[in-house]
């Protein structure tokens, strides 16, 4: 029989202090019984002699110091795991909220997981085709990668994430695929968008959803991504599934963390965020990846809204230091109705080099993307110059680059939510756009590829327009 304490001495924000306790363990799970009979869950943050500091997930409203009772359960927070989780919707602490039956777990696992031995990791190198040119061609996603979407309030990050979830495939393979969705502090409408999009496309059958809405207790959010990863690890490494984890919105998660830190009166690091924000985020993000000898994989797309679109804010900044690249959405492109509004210059996929090339995408991929980047960057520079001096002041070459960058945004980056391009289509489109330049300008592409591919598109330039279109749809 577990001992019940009625020795709460202090309640402050999401924290309670329990005194005269014995044998309490760090990170142990706690149940608080309110005078109304309601049960709340919490976690031990610190034990100091006979005092235990407990963080309450569902908030401290209604807890009092005299009548509330505290029980220490002697174990960490766990999630019951079963294949029946697929197709189900849970709250941020892993309790079903879709009126479905109870899950009978195969086994229970601590949601904190154990750190993966770097020696046991397998390197992500399988190309995932998302059907979005700006990602496939320029910021290639690979299986087991963690690639966040840095966005701002009011930008269509959720739509981009849903499009990726809908279209992602690995070329030439039929494998079991699942989506684990963790929502932290998002609005009902945003959650509803994902749920109905998953329902509409039938993806819900292969999805597990953990939803903590904006009006759910903030501290509960600290458990939500860990719930999602525990489910994902089970599906990936025990049930051979390729799992795509989408976490939205990490900014809300970090704010909950800050709230707890402030309640503990900790010395803050930069801009008020706790000094251990990096470590905490790493323990979440680093659970993505591949493990040697296991068939499944976990690919992670966390979404975060950058406060004031500022990339140097600690949340996107520390995220960028942990994840393998970032996809950045920007307002100017969104205003120009470029969809998805991906700003390709500051976006990056660190693992792309291992996921592209012969037998993965195509031999010319690396050179084409280097050239596209360089040309677009130069076009953008010319644009800045043109703003100050007028277009007339540009050299002929710069004018060419300027024109290129506009066409590039319009045709390459922008494609709409419903278009699903194959990698061949993406690469050929790149060649087609580059073909406006004289050959000497294409310094980043190897001679042999220029000979092989450029000639094809140079010729087509003189050909009639409809033929060119036909060639685009059916690449050789």
């Amino acid at each position, binding site marked *: 029989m577990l001992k019940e304490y009625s020795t709460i001495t202090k309640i402050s924000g999401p924290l309670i202090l329990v005194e005269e306790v014995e044998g309490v*363990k760090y990170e*142990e799970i706690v149940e608080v019984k309110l005078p109304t009979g309601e049960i709340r869950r919490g976690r031990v943050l610190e034990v*100091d002699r006979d005092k235990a500091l407990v963080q309450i997930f569902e908030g401290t409203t209604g807890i009092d110091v005299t009548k509330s009772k505290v029980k220490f359960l002697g174990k960490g927070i766990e999630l019951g795991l079963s294949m029946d989780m697929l197709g189900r919707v849970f709250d941020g602490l892993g309790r079903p909220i879709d009126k479905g039956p109870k899950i009978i777990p195969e086994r229970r696992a601590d949601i904190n997981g154990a750190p993966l031995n*770097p020696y046991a990791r397998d390197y992500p190198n399988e190309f995932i085709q998302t059907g979005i040119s700006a990602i496939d061609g320029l910021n290639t996603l690979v299986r087991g990668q963690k690639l966040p979407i840095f966005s701002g309030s009011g930008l269509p990050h959720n739509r981009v994430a849903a499009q990726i979830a809908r279209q992602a495939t690995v070329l030439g393979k039929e494998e079991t695929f699942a989506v684990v969705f963790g929502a932290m502090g998002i609005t009902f409408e945003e959650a509803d968008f994902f749920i109905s999009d998953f329902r509409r496309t039938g993806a819900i059958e292969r999805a597990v959803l953990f939803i903590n809405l904006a009006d759910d207790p903030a501290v509960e959010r600290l458990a939500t991504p860990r719930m999602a990863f525990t489910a994902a690890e089970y599906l990936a490494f025990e049930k051979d599934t390729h799992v795509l984890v989408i976490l939205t919105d990490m900014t809300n998660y970090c704010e909950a963390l800050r709230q707890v830190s402030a309640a503990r009166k900790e010395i803050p690091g930069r801009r008020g965020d706790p000094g251990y924000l990096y*470590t905490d985020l790493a323990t979440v993000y*680093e659970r993505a*990846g591949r493990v040697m000898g296991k068939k499944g994989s976990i690919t992670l797309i966390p979404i975060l809204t950058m406060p004031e679109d500022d990339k140097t804010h600690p949340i996107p900044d520390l995220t960028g230091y*942990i994840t393998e690249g970032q996809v950045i959405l920007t307002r100017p492109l969104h205003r120009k109705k470029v969809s998805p509004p991906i700003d390709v210059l500051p976006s990056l996929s660190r693992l792309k080099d291992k996921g592209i090339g012969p037998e993965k995408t195509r031999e010319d991929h*690396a050179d084409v993307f280097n050239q596209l980047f360089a040309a677009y960057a130069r076009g953008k520079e010319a644009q800045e110059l043109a703003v100050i001096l007028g277009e007339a002041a540009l050299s002929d070459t710069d004018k060419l680059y300027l024109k290129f960058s506009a066409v590039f945004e319009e045709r390459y980056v922008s494609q709409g939510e419903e278009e699903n391009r194959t990698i061949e289509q993406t690469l050929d489109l790149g060649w087609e756009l580059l073909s406006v330049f004289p050959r000497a300008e294409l*310094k980043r592409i190897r001679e042999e590829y220029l000979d092989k591919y450029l000639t094809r598109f140079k010729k087509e330039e003189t050909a009639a327009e409809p033929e060119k279109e036909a060639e685009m749809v059916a690449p050789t």
Partner: protein
Amino acid sequence: MNGEARERTGTIVKVAGPLVVAEGMSGARMFDVVKVSDKRLIGEIIELSGDLASIQVYEETGGIGTGEPVYQTGQPLSVELGPGLIESIYDGIQRPLDVIREMVGESITRGIEVPALNREKKWAFEPKAAAGDSVVEGDLLGEVQETTLVIHKILVPPGINGTIERIESGEFTVEETVCVIKNDDGTTHDLSMMQRWPVRKSRPYKEKLAPHIALTTGQRVLDTFFPVGKGGTACVPGPFGSGKTVVQHQLAKWADAEIIVYIGCGERGNEMTDVLLEFPELKDPRSGDPLMRRTVLIANTSNMPVAAREASVYTGITIAEYFRDMGYSVAVMADSTSRWAEAMREISGRLEEMPGEEGYPAYLGAKVAEFYERAGRVTCLGSDSREGAMSVIGAVSPPGGDLSDPVVQATLRVVKVFWSLEDKLAYKRHFPAISWLTSYSLYLENIETYLREEVAEDMPDLRSEAMRLLEEEAELEEIVRLVGIDALSPADRLTLEASRSIREDFLHQNAFHEVDTYTSMEKQYKMLHVILHFYHRAKDALEKGVPITTIETLPIRERIARAKYMAEDAADQIVALEDEIDKAIKDVLAEAA
């Protein structure tokens, strides 16, 4: 009575994250290792107050509570040094990750104890001294061919001077006695091939010397423009996405050092996997053997316990010093020292110390300086006065790329080379994104003689000229931004063209291109020579009335741009380009006339 029962124990009174406080710890010393709870988690004492000891625990502390025991070991945190280090991958406290994986699977379970060096493996010990020889600390006793690239030298450990009574030859494990030395004070020492050394104490040497040879890395912007000396220190700060890790990996791959120690401190797990999978495949450009055979890896990834991150840089540098003592040139890469500093900050915060800037402890600067100061070119202990060198290159990850970050500032105060990575360059896909305007190297003077003698008499002059062009370019760009390119004189436009050629055809280097990834000093010299040769010839032509537009569109320029993709053994073709340049210029001159 067994060893366990004799251990002195204390009792846990507080657990807060990686910090545990125990009472009843009288007799404990600062920085002693302790075992926490019956799970025997490894920790280190970082503060003592009466019989209370604050302990930083190198493993997760979840499930640990008050009342549990703490066992003292009476030993400081130490590493095991001996044959078997090379090709190993260790965590921050020198536990072999490959062995852990074999024992417990893909996750790291707590309280696991594994010896750092394999106790079963036998190494062929070849004596290099004989019984009766009188030896001093640091003298060579024997050798072990550890890998095809590394001869592991077994030396007389520091503090021992005397006469060899007995020395063996043959196959031994690291624990077996290979030599007995009778010390001058009368004590006898049974020496095995393995020794222990506390990580927080630097290993002794005779004398420190100034670096005078360049540590070539095959990276053009580094070797030609901002070289680091053998035994020098460098730092690479930059925002995320600017290519710190690629620079560190390139250095680990191609740096002209005999031993590489790579410390992955609080960084991505996949990056360590990359190193693990790639290094055994990559060939050393000098010997043709896999690069892994000269490499020691320390991997404490960001999801592994935070306190062990703090220890990992010390573990790495101590191993590096051990190889330096053998007379080798060792290069240490630490990626990233910011994570190490953050670990210090976290522990300091839990100790409730008064913070300095941005929550970092006030002793941050002292710790950083102490770490980099362990680098250097030294005369090693031993009667043969051999020289060893340890170069340290630290990556720094400043928040938001802001160089006013306390870790960057503390680092810049001590290191001699600053490679400034800029995200602006990275966006343009100019890699390595090292800014030629803000970076610096203080070794240019030290190694000038070496460059003139070993590379080419005029190498330093070429560098100065190229640097001058780049600086002029920066000024001219300002003008272009205000009034347009047409306002520039033809001579200025040629400067812009020449500096653009330096940037694109020389500084830009593709780490993933099979040829471009490494450029020898000889080829670097030739490439730069060709680029500047074109500039000089074009300048002549311009003065003789050839229009700038003609020069800008000469087809030979494309050939110069492709010089970087010419194989090392085809470097003569680069020199041949100069004749073609002369011919092309002659042609346009003839046309103009």
